[in-house]
């Protein structure tokens, strides 16, 4: 995460916004610790830690004001609405990439379009230019030639939100699986997180609440991080007809370790293949690729067998 910050600072960011939490996961510490590290490295930026609404309304509003530089509630509302729209559009586009890559005749072409988009996305200024870029990219993607009558293997990526949305941390799991012709979806995205914790506060979004309900027979209470969501997501993917799920486990993340041991039972009870991939600072990708390929082999053989017998 520090890497992400430094990248942004070098590109001109002067404020860092991070969410906080007082939950059982050590995440609540991150903001303060990262501030300390960044100061130590000599970066002079404003760091704003936004705690969840339930942990104090007054601070929340103060911080949001600071971030948005807005003075009245309507300005805040307008900025929030715009930010949300951008996040949603960007998340939708990422999933469209996943979809197109799975079906595409030429997977490299899809990767090329994506690289081009990511390259341009950091160069555009302001919301309207970004939306224009997303519109254009969606258009290019729609023109990619797809395999008709192709029925891809479907795999859900589950785990803690940061690890599953940051391609550098998860060895580009979405791209790699897509190249193998697999349709991938992530269980958590910034959009889903916002729907759960901000937009529908304090009730939560329908989808995420469903995951809690599904996880209940295995885990009744939150264990911090996204441990409970991981279990619920696995069951949710099974119910949606997916062929398997892959848990991305950042080494020494406590909630995900709890989830990992429970996922074994979920997998057995529901007859649903789930693999856990442990990621840490090791950059040797060979073992990682081997596991992904073997898992895709396993899942497709299972499907073949089911369709015959």
């Amino acid at each position: 995460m520090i890497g992400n910050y430094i990248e942004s600072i070098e590109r001109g960011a002067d404020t860092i916004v991070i969410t906080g939490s007082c939950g059982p996961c050590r995440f609540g510490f991150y903001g303060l610790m990262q501030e300390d590290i960044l100061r130590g490295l000599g970066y002079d930026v404003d760091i704003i830690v936004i705690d969840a609404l339930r942990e104090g309304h007054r601070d929340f509003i103060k911080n949001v004001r600071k971030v948005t530089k807005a003075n009245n509630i309507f300005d805040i509302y307008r900025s929030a609405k715009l930010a949300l729209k951008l996040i949603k559009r960007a998340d939708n586009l990422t999933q469209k990439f996943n979809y197109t890559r799975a079906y595409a005749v030429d997977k490299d072409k899809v990767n090329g379009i994506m690289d081009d988009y990511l390259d341009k996305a950091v160069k555009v200024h302001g919301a309207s230019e970004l939306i224009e870029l997303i519109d254009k990219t969606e258009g290019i993607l729609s023109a990619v030639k797809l395999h008709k009558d192709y029925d891809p293997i479907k795999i859900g990526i589950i785990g803690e939100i940061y690890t599953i949305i940051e391609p550098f941390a998860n060895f580009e799991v979405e791209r790699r699986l897509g190249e193998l012709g697999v349709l991938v979806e992530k269980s958590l995205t910034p959009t889903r997180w916002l729907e759960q914790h901000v937009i529908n506060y304090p009730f939560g979004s329908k989808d995420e609440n469903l995951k809690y309900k599904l996880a209940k027979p295995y885990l009744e209470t939150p264990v911090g991080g996204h441990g409970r969501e991981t279990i619920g997501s696995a069951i949710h993917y099974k119910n949606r007809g997916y062929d398997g799920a892959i848990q991305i486990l950042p080494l020494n993340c406590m909630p995900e370790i709890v989830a990992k041991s429970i996922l074994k039972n979920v997998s057995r009870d529901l007859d649903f293949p789930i693999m856990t991939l442990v990621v840490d600072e090791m950059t040797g990708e060979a073992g990682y690729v081997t596991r992904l390929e073997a898992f895709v082999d396993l899942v497709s053989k299972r499907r073949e067998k089911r369709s015959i017998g």
Partner: protein
Amino acid sequence: MVNYYMGIDVGSVSTNIVLIDEENNLVYKRYLRTQGKPLVILQDGIREVAEELGHSNIAGVGTTGSGRYLASVLIGADVVKNEITCHAIAALDYNPETRTVLEIGGQDSKIIIIRDGIVVDFAMNTVCAAGTGSFLDRQALRLGMDISEFGNIALNSKNPVRIAGRCAVFAESDMIHKQQLGHNQEDIVSGLCNALVRNYLSNVAKGKDLQPVILFQGGVAANKGIRKAFEDQLGQKIHVPTHYDVMGAIGAAILSKEVVKDRGESRFKGFDIYKRDYRVSPIDCNGCSNICEILEIREDDKILARYGDKCGKWSL
């Protein structure tokens, strides 16, 4: 001319080359040490095959192991497959009733759970090499014995000592401690075998249902001490296939046969490849903050492949 299928397993410690016939019988096998020079060793291996069986027709080639993509670029493989699938295929070919495969190689160990002839679950060791062949190699060296003698010595033990097997570093200091206390060498060796198996069963095989028939493959399967430790701790009979040390390569060869059958012809570049000059040069890309290490492979003056980049701009 007879048709043979070639399987190549380029692992971290060994590079194996096998040839099988149409009935999956093994006609040639070569076990070479990779020694960190996969390209050179592979060329040597191919030369040896050519000298012995150069007159035969190679109808298909499959590669596996952590160096499978590199090998495929060099040789022109028809199928490039991960080790898990290859080991499972070879195990099922040896015994269709197989339900568990234990595989311990030089630097990694795996378990494959098979039911009704398909892989239903698998696991590989993660960030620790305590349960693998390199660990045994190192300890044999410390004890001043040949690794091929290791297993037989272990079998002579009547009172194996207990050695902490959780971590290679601690196992070593624990072993030294037991040596200083004056334990017999065979008891220490046997204790090491037990420690390795305990480690494997509680890490790699954790939570898995190990049902018979159980096959034990990989280089370490040669070690009778380990074999016995598995039998003692599992209370099951452990079967070691005849060609336990090259099962991955056999699996790749079998797969290539199937692929070529569908495609009609092989992409094999011919035995001449050992005569050509291959060079690998690393490139550090500074195009962005990922700073990828790119490898470029040249055949004479032609660039064969480049890989290692995250963005694809170096790909051909």
